[in-house]
């Protein structure tokens, strides 16, 4: 009894066989991970952030608090404050208190208008950084926070390049991508992010959009706001009040 198997048939069988094996072993239905230990339910929250630029005094208390709370290494920033100075001729001068003393010095610009703009990760609904991560280390939680999984990150820096807001950096300490977490460890325990908790002028407002009575829900309902770089289509979740056209 002879039976000739053509090469094509052999490959077909092999292909189907390995396919089945992969389906069986693959991540389609992975084993369930450890269930949430705390009673925190992320389905019940949707966090957002409002920056009222008209209130900011540029004291950079937020930057100091962020550094202390999150152990951010020197030279890199999860949040920062920019100063815009527009002179009589309409020339715009921008600087940031990026030295580690976080103090804005005096300038000799003859300004016609000047203001501070605090910045941080916008926690975009369509975050670009997540889409480019090759190892699934960048993700957005169900309660609306874009985070980095430091057990997965390989420090390739794609996300750093992809972010249109410059919110990410490679940590000189861990050599992994790092960014604002909205103080995820605080907000999930009912606290405010360190930058919000330390702001003396209430220029930074954080809250839950699922709660219609929260300050942030009321502000977004009643006030006029803008987002940064809306043309990027990232759908930022960080809203700015009193933002000048020079910034957007």
């Amino acid at each position, binding site marked *: 009894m002879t039976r000739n*198997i053509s090469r094509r048939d*052999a490959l077909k069988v*092999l292909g189907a066989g*390995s396919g089945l*094996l*992969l389906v069986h*072993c693959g*991540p389609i239905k*992975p*084993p*369930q*991970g*450890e269930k*949430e230990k*705390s009673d925190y339910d992320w389905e019940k929250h949707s966090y957002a952030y409002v920056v009222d630029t*008209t209130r900011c*005094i*540029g*004291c*950079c*208390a937020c930057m*100091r*608090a962020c550094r*202390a*709370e*999150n152990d951010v290494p020197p030279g890199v920033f999860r949040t920062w404050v920019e100063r*815009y*100075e527009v002179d009589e001729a309409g020339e715009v001068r921008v600087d940031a208190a990026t030295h580690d003393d*976080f*103090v*804005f010095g*005096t*300038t000799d610009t003859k*300004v016609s208008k*000047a*203001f*501070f703009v605090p910045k941080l990760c916008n926690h975009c609904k369509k975050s670009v950084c*997540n889409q480019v991560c090759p190892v*699934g280390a*960048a*993700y*957005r939680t*169900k309660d609306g926070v874009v*985070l980095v*999984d430091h*057990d*997965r990150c390989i420090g390739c820096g794609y996300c750093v390049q992809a972010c249109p807001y410059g919110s990410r950096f490679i940590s000189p300490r861990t050599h992994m991508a790092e960014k604002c*977490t909205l103080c*995820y*460890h*605080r907000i*999930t*325990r009912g*606290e405010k992010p*360190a930058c919000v*908790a330390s*702001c*003396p*002028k*209430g220029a930074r407002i954080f809250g839950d959009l699922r709660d219609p009575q929260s300050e942030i829900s009321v502000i977004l309902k009643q006030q006029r706001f803008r987002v940064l770089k809306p043309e990027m289509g990232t759908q930022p979740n960080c809203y700015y009040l009193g933002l000048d056209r020079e910034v957007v």
Partner: protein
Amino acid sequence: MSKYRHAVSVFVVLGVVVIAAAIARNLAIPDTFGEFGHYRGAAPAQAREFPLRHVGADVCADCHDKQKSLHDKDAHSRVPCETCHGPGAEHVKAEGDAPMRRPTAKSDCLVCHQRLAARPGSFPQIDADVHFAFVGVKDPSTPCVSCHDPHEPLYMDRDVRTARLHPAIHRCRDCHQGTMAEGTVKPERHPVTFECNYCHPAIVADFAKRTHAHVACTTCHLYFRESEYAGRIIRDADPRFCLLCHRAAPFRSANAPKTIDWPSHRDKVASGPTDAKKGCVDCHRDRIHTVGTPVRGAVKGAQL
């Protein structure tokens, strides 16, 4: 059978490769990957485990209730404790043994109060040189806390809500009586922000004759802007407010405002028990301006 040997060996090799690849893939992909999305399902819970460093003012108040209540009634009431003192988790954990930051340098205050063009105009800010010249401080390194207690920087004993609501920008009709004639236009160089003497000419004129003439109205009548149109104005007659400039201190220069020692000054001149409660303006009213001048005067030439 031997004629299938080549096929069997191919099957075996490919099978081994496929199984090895599947095992390698399974090892490379973490257990909880894909549970909620294209990421490790256990990662968010891990991110939540990070310890808290800032404890919040309520925790501070558990031990430092005196400072907290003092702080809460004054202008710094919205400045959280940890904004100046740094995060308190370790201090709390060590039950007070780990020291907190106690910022006392001039530069610590100027982080917020240095005059900068970009700061909102309603926020109190100074040029240290100008301010020191004004109050007669000779040593430029004198820290702000020599005069201003950071927990009660302005001695604002009154609740800001009970202070007088004061307009910042007037409507036409506040000054101009009658109906607007047709074709009324905004006069050229019409002020947008009004100055004190537009409405209070009698008091301003009276004040200009007194020894305090070089002091701005808003130095004592603290003004807190609430909106584009209104703010709160506070008249602070607390003696401690006068002493901000007039307290005797070694760092004052010779041309400083006249200084006194308090309360020994009051005790010296007191003649009875009622005098023991007197404040500066009870005797020195003539240095400022008289009371009883019309609060609101007619604006000169305010006719449409």
